[in-house]
C-alpha cells in the first residue's frame, strides 16, 4: 500500500515508529497527483515547499515534539489564502492573485505540523455543485472520469478520494463540503457557523460560509476539525468557545440516542438506491441501540428558494470588490474608470458567477428588496425553528446528503435551476447554521458512492461525529 493511501492514524503510527519518513509520504502523494493528472483536482501544487516542510516535520517527530497533524499531507481549496501563494478561487478574476497573508485555519494547521501540498480546484467563487464552472477546467470523478465530483469543493473531495493527499480543507456555503464528499465517497464536515474562523477565506455569502475538513475516515476529519476550530478576533462572527472535543467521543456508540428521519427528505426526486441506503443506515443504528423516529421539517420545500435569494444577495455585495483597481483581473482595453469596472468584471467573471451577481442585485434592488430579500430572511427564521422543534424529539437527524449519486459532466450545466436543486438536502443546514457531516454509506448499481448526512444541534460536532463513527464501522463490516 502506498503511504498516500494510509489514513492519518495509521500513517502517524508508522512515522512515530520510524518505519516511514515524512518525505516518502509527500513523494507518494505527489506521485498520485501525477498519475491521475486527468482528474484536475489541483490548481497548483507546491512540491518543493512541501518537501522542505517534510524535512522540518521529520526532525520534530524524531525529537518527539511534533504537532497533532505531523505528516498529514493536505490539499487546500483555492479560496483559502496561503501567504505567498496564488489564491485563484477558480476564477480568471484572481488567476494571478498572490495572497499577502495566510488564513487563520492555515496558521492553525501549520502550527500542528501539517504539510501543504497545494490548492484544490473548485467551482468559480464556490458557486456550483459540480466543479464544472472552474476557469481551470472541470475536476473529474475519481471512479468515473465522465462524471462530476460534486462541488464546490470538488477538487478537495476528488483529491482525498484518489489518495492524492491525506485530507483536505473545503468551504461549505450551501453544501459545498458535504455534497462533493458524498459524491466522491469521503467524509466531509460543515461545522457550526462561527466555529471556524473565516479570516482568509474569500467571501461568497458571509452569513452562510464555513470552512470544513474532508478526509477518508471520521477520525481524520474529527482531528482536523479540532485543530481548525477556535476563537479568532480577526473574524467578528467567530464564537468565543473552546474547540469541540470530538476524538474522545468517537467510540461511545449510539445506544440510547434518538435518531430523527425528517420525512420531507425522503420525498420525490430522491434516487431509489440512495433512499434504500439511508434507510439501511437507520436500521443499522437501530441494531446498535439507537431509537429511530420520524420527524418533520415542514419548511424544507422553501429552503432552496430562500437560499438562492440570500446567498446571491450576499454574493452580489461581496463580489462588488472586484473592480480591477487594486487586485485581480483588469481588462487591457479600458479607456475610462467606469469602462474599467464594466470590462474587468465582465471579462474576469464566468457565466455562473455573473448570473448569481445579477440575481442577487435584482433581489436587492429598489422595489424588490421587501418582496424577496426581506421575505427570505423571514423564511430563514421558520427553517431554523423547524430544526429547533425537531431537536426536541431527537438528538440528531439522519438524511441523504445528495438526491443522486455523481451525475455526468454537462448533464445539468445548461439548466441553472436543476443544478441548484442538487443542494436540496444541504442548504437548510447552512441557513440554520448547524453542524452536519456526510459519510459514505453504500454504493449504487454503478458502484458510485452514496453519502449519508448527520445533522446535529448548534455546536454538537462531537455528537454528529460520534454517530458518524458508528455508521462508518457498520459500513465497513457490511
Amino acid at each position, binding site marked *: 500500500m502506498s503511504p498516500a493511501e494510509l489514513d492519518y492514524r495509521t500513517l502517524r503510527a508508522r512515522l512515530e515508529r520510524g518505519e516511514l519518513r515524512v518525505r516518502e509520504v509527500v513523494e507518494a502523494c505527489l506521485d498520485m497527483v501525477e498519475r491521475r493528472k486527468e482528474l484536475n483536482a489541483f490548481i497548483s501544487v507546491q512540491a518543493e515547499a512541501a518537501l522542505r516542510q517534510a524535512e522540518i516535520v521529520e526532525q520534530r517527530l524524531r525529537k518527539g515534539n511534533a504537532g497533532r497533524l505531523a505528516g498529514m499531507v493536505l490539499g487546500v481549496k483555492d479560496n483559502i489564502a496561503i501567504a505567498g501563494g496564488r489564491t485563484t478561487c477558480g476564477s480568471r478574476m484572481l488567476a494571478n492573485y498572490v495572497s*499577502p497573508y495566510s488564513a487563520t485555519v492555515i496558521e492553525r494547521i501549520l502550527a500542528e505540523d501539517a504539510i501543504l501540498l497545494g490548492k484544490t480546484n473548485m467551482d468559480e467563487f464556490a458557486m456550483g455543485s459540480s466543479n464544472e464552472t472552474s476557469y481551470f477546467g472541470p475536476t473529474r470523478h475519481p471512479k468515473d472520469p465522465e462524471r462530476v465530483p460534486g462541488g464546490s469543493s470538488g477538487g478537495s473531495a476528488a483529491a482525498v478520494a484518489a489518495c492524492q493527499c491525506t485530507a483536505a480543507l473545503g468551504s461549505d456555503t450551501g453544501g459545498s463540503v458535504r455534497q462533493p464528499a458524498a459524491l466522491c465517497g469521503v467524509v466531509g464536515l460543515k461545522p457550526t457557523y462561527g466555529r471556524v474562523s473565516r479570516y482568509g477565506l474569500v467571501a461568497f455569502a458571509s452569513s452562510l460560509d464555513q470552512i470544513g475538513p474532508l478526509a477518508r475516515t471520521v477520525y481524520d476529519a474529527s482531528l482536523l476539525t479540532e485543530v481548525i476550530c477556535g476563537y479568532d478576533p480577526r473574524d467578528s*462572527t467567530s464564537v468565543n468557545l473552546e474547540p469541540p472535543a470530538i476524538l474522545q467521543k468517537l467510540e461511545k456508540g449510539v445506544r440510547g440516542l434518538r435518531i430523527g428521519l425528517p420525512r420531507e427528505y425522503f420525498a420525490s426526486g430522491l434516487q431509489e438506491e440512495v433512499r434504500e441506503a439511508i434507510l439501511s443506515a437507520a436500521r443499522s443504528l437501530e441494531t446498535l441501540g439507537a431509537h429511530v423516529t420520524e420527524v418533520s421539517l415542514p419548511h424544507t420545500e422553501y429552503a432552496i428558494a430562500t437560499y438562492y435569494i440570500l446567498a446571491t444577495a450576499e454574493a452580489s455585495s461581496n463580489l462588488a470588490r472586484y473592480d480591477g*483597481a487594486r487586485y485581480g483581473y483588469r481588462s487591457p482595453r479600458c479607456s475610462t474608470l467606469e469602462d474599467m469596472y464594466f470590462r474587468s468584471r465582465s471579462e474576469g467573471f464566468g457565466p455562473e458567477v455573473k*448570473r448569481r*451577481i*445579477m440575481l442577487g442585485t435584482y433581489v436587492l434592488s429598489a422595489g424588490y428588496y421587501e418582496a424577496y430579500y426581506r421575505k427570505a430572511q423571514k423564511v430563514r427564521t421558520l427553517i431554523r425553528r423547524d430544526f429547533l422543534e425537531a431537536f426536541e424529539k431527537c438528538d440528531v437527524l439522519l438524511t441523504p446528503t445528495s438526491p443522486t449519486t455523481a451525475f455526468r459532466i454537462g448533464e445539468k450545466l445548461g439548466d441553472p435551476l436543476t443544478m441548484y436543486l442538487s443542494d436540496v438536502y444541504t442548504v437548510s443546514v447552512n441557513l440554520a447554521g448547524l453542524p452536519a457531516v456526510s459519510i459514505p454509506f453504500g454504493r449504487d448499481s454503478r458502484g458510485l458512492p452514496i453519502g449519508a448526512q448527520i445533522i446535529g444541534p448548534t455546536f454538537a460536532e462531537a455528537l454528529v461525529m460520534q454517530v458518524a463513527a458508528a455508521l462508518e464501522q457498520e459500513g465497513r463490516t457490511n
Partner: protein
Amino acid sequence: MPISIEEVDRIAQLAKLSFTEEEKWELAEQLAKIVEYVEKINELDLEHVPPTTHVIELTNVMREDEVRPGLSQEEALMNAPAKKLGFFSVPKVIG
C-alpha cells in the same frame, strides 16, 4: 414573471456588468425561471415572523483603537494591475 431586456439592462448597470445581446436574452429567460421558482416563498404567511440576519447571537465586537502592524505598502501593491509612485494607477476618471 417575465423579465424584460430593459430590466436586464437596469440590473447589469447596477452590477457593473455588460452582456452581448444574445447573453441578455438568455439571462432574461434564466432569471425569469429562477425568480418564478423563488417566488414560492410567497405561499407563506410571514407577517408576524421576525427576520434572521445571523444565526448566532452577535453583539458588536469592539477593540481598543491601537495601531497594529498591517500590510506594508509594497505588500498592499503587490497585486495591483497598475501602479505609479507607490499608488494604485487607474484610467482617467473624467471622460
